[in-house]
């Protein structure tokens, strides 16, 4: 094997290089030559093509993402955007770190492994910050539920998420499942992880201290995943999509579990000076980011990397995306202790390099220099594009479209709606995830937000919800992104937690399409404005571009995760009432807002009109009332109103513990609108009679509209003069859809998964 070295590059400066095939443009290649003062070696070329890919460099999104960095940090943010994940102070000496990321294209090519390694990757990001990962969530989007390819993709993705997360021992406490034909051929697999650590255990990625040792931990390096970021994540699919399977990584959750335990033991022993996970772009990314962050020189002896295949070439070793690997910087004195911990856990640990004087990253292969670059040029100085923006041609006509005529609300409509793929029970998916491992899960699906206890002594805990609505965002990207944030914020507040921070995964089509870039620019502007108004800083996230197949982009889908804080998880408000005779109150105002609604979609496959109006001051007020209601013990249940409107919320809350409701709709809007409108800023609460006066007086005093709409009772949902449906009938409609589409899970009657059904 002849390897292209720096010496050869100097001798043979005009060698024709395949930079276009590797994804670099002409001007980008010219810039590489300018930085190096010569042509890059084959290995360097591979590194630049990876690090300057859209996925790693954020070259199209950077100018827009700056808005998030400009937001007020608040007094809880310990580490902001730029590191692997943001870190938030939650009190009691504890910090949490959380982030959501995409693994969309790999999950279409190879659903099981793509989704599994999506979980693995985000978990390592959290581990890298010094935290013990304690939960995962996954917002998922698929093509039409009854499309044949969805039958291939969905079961594999769900099994992959479960297979990896369950084996890591991380409870999966929520997420989303959305069906829409725009995701056909390009499902969205977003994965969120949250970890917790003592504040003084935060780890950073900077490699400093000349003479310190660079240690590669974890799995051997193989040929899997080569080109994952440049091939899969930074280009649109064409007809040969699934043929790209060698670009998908293969996961080993057992190795990741060992890696977690080994790293945490090293952190606790204060044995690590800097650490970086190996994810997209593998060793290339880890070496350049640690040395660039530390403003240090680094030398790596590539032949020391343990390989699965001896014939691998240096550029393959550097580009491999083999999973379950970490890069640690340790002092020579601590090296024996680090190796001993690795051995205890059965984790491979290899000293592959050292921090050196100067500011060059030098990689050798059997003593020949194959890479000699300034690491910052790869990690930080990639190209930045201000892409052209163009409001889509059909935007105005889409918004101007009239909605189909409204029907008369009746039992048949309600049953069709709750059985529709986007509103039906997600039990089929969720039962394949371990939701209780670690013993701290207080709320999980189907509750509005997942809640996990951080301290057994004090009851301190966190709440998390993720939301996104591609139809709303298609109709109005600025408002759509704000509605995603507002819904997640409302979900977190509904269980009684104070929303404190935001992460986001921005799933869009090709940035080279000005119409997509306009959607992206509008959505980021909307999200940043809303975060400022709600006082929730963005701690980090991920951009996923090129989500389009055969020229058709997905609906723009910003997925927003909101972190909330509970000083005592025992006072969480659940979504369902457990007692008959409690008052049902509707908080907020219902308007005639069915543009982009589930009703328009499920009944007419119609997308048009305007999404619901955003009123962030109202969202904030509603949140304060819900948190106060929880703190003062006034609420026995609270459920946010969103997709499917009041009707959906009534059904879900009634089915939760099998107690029905008698509802009298107020005069004014027609019953159909009151039941199915998706106006934002609303919640349904159940209040014991003894608390009703106190609660309604609080709403009045704060100026939050509060309407008594009924009482919990019986074994049916009865909306006076509109419909009456027994709970058993509602349950069979609500629960039947996914098992009918994807096959039964297990025989017998299912107990309610997060609390016994009554």
């Amino acid at each position, binding site marked *: 094997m002849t390897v292209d070295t720096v010496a050869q590059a100097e001798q043979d400066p005009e060698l024709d290089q395949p930079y276009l095939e590797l994804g670099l443009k002409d001007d980008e290649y010219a810039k590489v030559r300018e930085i190096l003062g010569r042509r890059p070696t084959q290995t360097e070329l591979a590194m630049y093509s990876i690090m300057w890919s859209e996925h790693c460099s954020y070259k199209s999104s950077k100018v827009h993402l700056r808005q998030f960095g400009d937001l007020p940090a608040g007094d809880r943010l310990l580490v902001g955007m730029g590191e692997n994940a943001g870190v938030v102070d939650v009190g009691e000496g504890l910090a949490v770190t959380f982030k959501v990321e995409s693994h969309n294209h790999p999950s279409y090519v190879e659903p099981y492994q793509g989704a599994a390694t999506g979980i693995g990757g985000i978990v390592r990001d959290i581990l890298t910050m010094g935290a013990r990962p304690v939960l995962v969530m996954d917002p998922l989007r698929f093509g039409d539920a009854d499309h044949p390819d969805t039958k291939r993709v969905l079961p594999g993705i769900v099994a992959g998420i479960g297979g990896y997360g*369950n084996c890591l021992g991380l409870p999966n406490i929520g997420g989303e499942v959305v069906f829409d034909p725009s995701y056909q051929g390009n499902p969205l697999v977003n994965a969120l992880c949250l970890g917790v650590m003592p504040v003084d255990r935060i780890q950073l990625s900077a490699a400093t201290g000349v003479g310190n040792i660079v240690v590669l931990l974890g799995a051997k390096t193989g040929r899997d995943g080569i080109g994952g970021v440049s091939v899969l994540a930074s280009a649109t699919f064409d007809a040969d999509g699934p043929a790209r399977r060698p670009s998908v990584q293969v996961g080993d959750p057992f190795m990741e579990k060992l890696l977690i335990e080994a790293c945490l033991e090293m952190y606790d022993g204060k044995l690590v000076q800097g650490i970086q996970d190996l994810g997209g772009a593998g060793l290339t990314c880890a070496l350049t980011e640690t040395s660039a962050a530390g403003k240090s020189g680094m030398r790596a002896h590539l032949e020391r990397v343990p390989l699965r295949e001896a014939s691998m070439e240096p550029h393959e070793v550097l580009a491999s995306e083999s999973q379950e690997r970490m890069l640690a910087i340790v002092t020579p004195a601590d090296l024996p202790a680090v190796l001993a911990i690795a051995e205890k856990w059965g984790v491979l640990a290899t000293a592959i390099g050292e921090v050196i004087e100067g500011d060059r990253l030098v990689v050798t292969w059997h003593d020949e220099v194959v890479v000699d670059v300034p690491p910052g040029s790869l990690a930080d100085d990639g190209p930045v594009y201000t892409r052209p923006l163009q409001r889509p041609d059909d935007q105005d006509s889409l918004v101007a479209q009239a909605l189909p005529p409204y029907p008369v609300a009746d039992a048949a409509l309600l049953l069709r709606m709750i059985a529709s793929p986007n509103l039906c029970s997600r039990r089929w998916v969720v039962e394949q995830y371990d939701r209780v491992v670690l*013993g701290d899960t207080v709320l999980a699906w189907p509750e509005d937000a997942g809640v996990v206890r951080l301290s057994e002594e004090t009851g301190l805990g966190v709440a998390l919800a993720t939301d996104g609505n591609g139809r709303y965002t298609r109709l109005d990207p600025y408002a759509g992104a704000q509605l995603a944030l507002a819904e997640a914020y409302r979900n977190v507040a509904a269980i009684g937690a104070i929303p404190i921070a935001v992460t986001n995964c921005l799933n869009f089509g090709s940035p080279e399409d000005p119409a997509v870039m306009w959607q992206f620019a509008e959505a980021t502007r909307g999200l940043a404005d809303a975060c400022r108004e709600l006082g929730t800083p963005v701690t980090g996230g991920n951009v996923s571009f090129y989500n389009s197949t055969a020229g058709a982009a997905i609906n723009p889908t910003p997925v927003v995760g909101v972190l909330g804080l509970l000083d005592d998880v025992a006072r969480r408000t659940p979504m369902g009432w457990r007692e008959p005779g409690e008052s049902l109150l509707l908080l907020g105002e219902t308007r005639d807002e069915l543009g982009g609604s589930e009703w328009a979609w499920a009944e007419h496959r119609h997308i048009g009109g305007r999404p619901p109006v955003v009123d962030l001051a109202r969202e904030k007020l509603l949140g304060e009332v819900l948190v106060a209601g929880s703190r003062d013990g006034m609420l026995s249940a609270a459920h946010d109103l969103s997709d499917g409107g009041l009707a959906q919320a009534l059904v879900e809350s009634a089915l939760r513990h099998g107690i029905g409701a008698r509802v009298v709709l107020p005069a004014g809007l027609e019953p159909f609108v009151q039941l199915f409108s998706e106006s934002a800023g609303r919640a349904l609460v159940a209040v014991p009679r003894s608390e009703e006066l106190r609660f309604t007086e609080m709403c009045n005093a704060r100026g939050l509209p509060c309407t008594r709409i009924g009482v919990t009772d019986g074994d049916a949902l009865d909306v006076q003069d509109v419909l009456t449906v027994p709970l058993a009938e509602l349950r069979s409609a609500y629960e039947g859809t996914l098992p009918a589409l994807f096959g039964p899970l297990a025989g017998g009657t299912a107990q309610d998964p997060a609390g016994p059904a009554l």
Partner: protein
Amino acid sequence: MPARIGVVTFPGSLDDRDAQRAVRLAGAEAVALWHGDADLHGVDAVVLPGGFSYGDYLRCGAIARFAPVMATIVDAAAGGLPVLGICNGFQVLCESHLLPGALTRNQHLHFINRDQTLKIENATTDWTSAYDGGEQIVIPVKNGEGCYVADERTLDALEAEGRVIARYVGGNPNGSLRDIAGITNERGNVVGIMPHPEHAVEALTGPGTDGLGFFTSVLKALTNA
């Protein structure tokens, strides 16, 4: 002095901290035991927790049974040491031949996690005496390979000797033969249970506290011993 109950951690154990919590909530001291250490450190009873020991890439529990700690546990169990295997721990007990039969892939081929009703069939073992015979309890089940199988003769013998300690009620989540959720050895000191009693020890985080009885049972057994 409170009883000391060991919880073994294998590489890939996941519910070990949860088992320790359940032991503490029952009023005993939890002692962490390490797979590579053959010494039981004087514990009065042992829990083999749930998880995916060694990734369960071979048969579940097939590698864990060769851990140094297991050789000691097998000997001690013969001498009457109470041993509870939960989920992966149950699989390890079967692989170690402390219990008969085997746990295979769920009939429907999916991992399944739900709150499951069980009927306690034998309330006389070291781990079930806090229950009443015939009592129904709700604890979470979560496994991919929880389908209990054995040959007909073994199943008949288990039934005849009252060694089925719990059965699934209201739906069998994994296809286990004769709805078997847990069994015991002849002496009643070794119990394997597929669902997770340690995840039903606090009303806040579980479906209830029905699982605590497994851990209070063994304390009673140790006091009476």
